[in-house]
């Protein structure tokens, strides 16, 4: 028997949901996403067997439905990754963050950048390309790029470094020519010298033993990971990253994420068009 379509969601119910979802995740929807949000909410209402929006909202707001919150967030976010995604943060890296870090380094010192979660590798390779092409002082330092993910399948793909046109859509032809080898139609492989310079490793950020292997990091790119965590896991993850960073180190979060909603351990800094978060310079 077909399940009846749930009642339509009213404007005020949707407004209430937008506010709740923003407080929970930092993701703000506006009415131009109304159809998208409503469709997915209706799906969750049906999937949980809730009678209507009111019953569903009550269950996520007043019960501790961690699993359902996770399902809800998954359904509301689109996991798509590609080269130079949210590139204003890479601009901030080369125009602001790295020059700031370099002020306290000597030529030949290491600058350590960690991409977590690195998924299939687009983010750490984008960081590498940006640094090589757009930071004039890159040659003065030993830049180590670490890239980690909990999913070993995506790590294998990241190590292979093979991508289709869609992943490379934001790269210029010159960048494609300089940093990729054409394999066959719709398949490009990142050049070996870049591929081999990046340290890919599996990690569960919630495992203290694993995270102890990551120390003296200058910059962490941790974009669109923490929104999937419940509050206590988010606290633990942020505190774990605090331990990983050098004093004065930086964290870059996803565009919808805000550290001020998770922890007061970091200070916001504005570079280029984005806000990043810095561990206190005098901290230990």
């Amino acid at each position, binding site marked *: 028997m077909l399940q009846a379509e749930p009642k339509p969601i009213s404007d005020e119910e949707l407004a209430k949901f937008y506010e709740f979802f923003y*407080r929970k995740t930092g993701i703000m929807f506006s009415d131009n996403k109304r159809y998208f949000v409503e469709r997915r909410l209706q799906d969750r209402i049906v999937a949980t067997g809730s009678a209507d929006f009111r019953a569903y909202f009550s269950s996520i707001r007043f019960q501790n439905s961690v699993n359902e919150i996770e399902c809800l967030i998954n359904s509301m976010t689109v996991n798509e990754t590609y080269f130079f995604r949210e590139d204003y943060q890479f601009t901030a890296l080369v125009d602001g963050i790295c020059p700031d870090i370099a002020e306290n380094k000597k030529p030949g010192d290491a600058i350590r950048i960690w991409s977590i979660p690195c998924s299939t590798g687009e983010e750490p390779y984008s960081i590498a390309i940006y640094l090589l092409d757009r930071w004039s002082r890159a040659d003065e330092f*030993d830049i180590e790029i670490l890239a980690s993910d909990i999913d070993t399948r995506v790590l294998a793909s990241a190590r292979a470094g093979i991508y289709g046109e869609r992943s490379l859509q934001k790269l210029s032809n010159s960048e494609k020519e300089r940093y990729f080898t054409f394999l066959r139609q719709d398949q490009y492989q990142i050049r070996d010298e870049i591929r081999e310079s990046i*340290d890919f490793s599996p990690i569960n950020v919630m495992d203290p*033993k694993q995270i*102890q292997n990551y120390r003296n990091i200058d910059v962490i790119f941790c974009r669109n990971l923490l929104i999937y965590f419940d509050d206590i896991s988010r*606290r633990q993850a942020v505190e774990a990253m605090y*331990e990983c960073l050098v004093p004065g180190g930086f964290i870059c979060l996803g565009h919808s994420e805000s550290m001020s909603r998770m922890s*007061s351990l970091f200070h916001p800094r504005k570079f280029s068009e984005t806000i990043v978060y810095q561990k206190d310079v005098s901290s*230990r």
Partner: protein
Amino acid sequence: MALVKRRDGKAGDAARENASAGRSLNELLPALGATDAVSRRQAARELAAHPNAAPAMCGQLEGERDASVRSVIFTSLIKLKTRTVVELLAPYLRSEDAALRNAVVEALQEMPEDIEPFMDSLLSDPDSDVRISAVTILGALAHPRVPEWLSQVIQSDPHINVCAAALDCLAEAGDEEAVPLLEGLAHRFPDEPYINFAVAAAIRRIKGE
């Protein structure tokens, strides 16, 4: 020389932390008072595995000046999440230290089942500031009795600021059933323009007008 592969496996601090993992309660408690913040954070993190450490961790909060250590202590207390922890944290709702008070509110919001037996008492505390903190806890508490507790405040708390805090929460989470309650609140404080304004705004918001 630009991009290089990572040269070392782990740095000194990590090696030290590895060596100290799995310590007993008796080893950890003195470390909670160590002079360096790294050791205190590490001890606080490990104490999350020791429910008997709650009194020591809660006791450390007042004198602990390093925000990063405080943060880890709170995380460990949230992981322990017991009635004892709630009992030990609740007195800090009276603290003069606003950062500590706010951190306690946030921690207690993470313990919905354990705070339930204490909520009535917090909401009837003689100190209106404590009652405001209790309402603030309700603002993000995932517990089915939240609407009931908020209604109770709206209907009977004598202090305008406590009621205003509850009104804010209801405006955000309430539905049309809350409207008569809110109207009742306006009648309880007829000479307070702010309450009348806030009630009208909350009702408009709930009705989507």
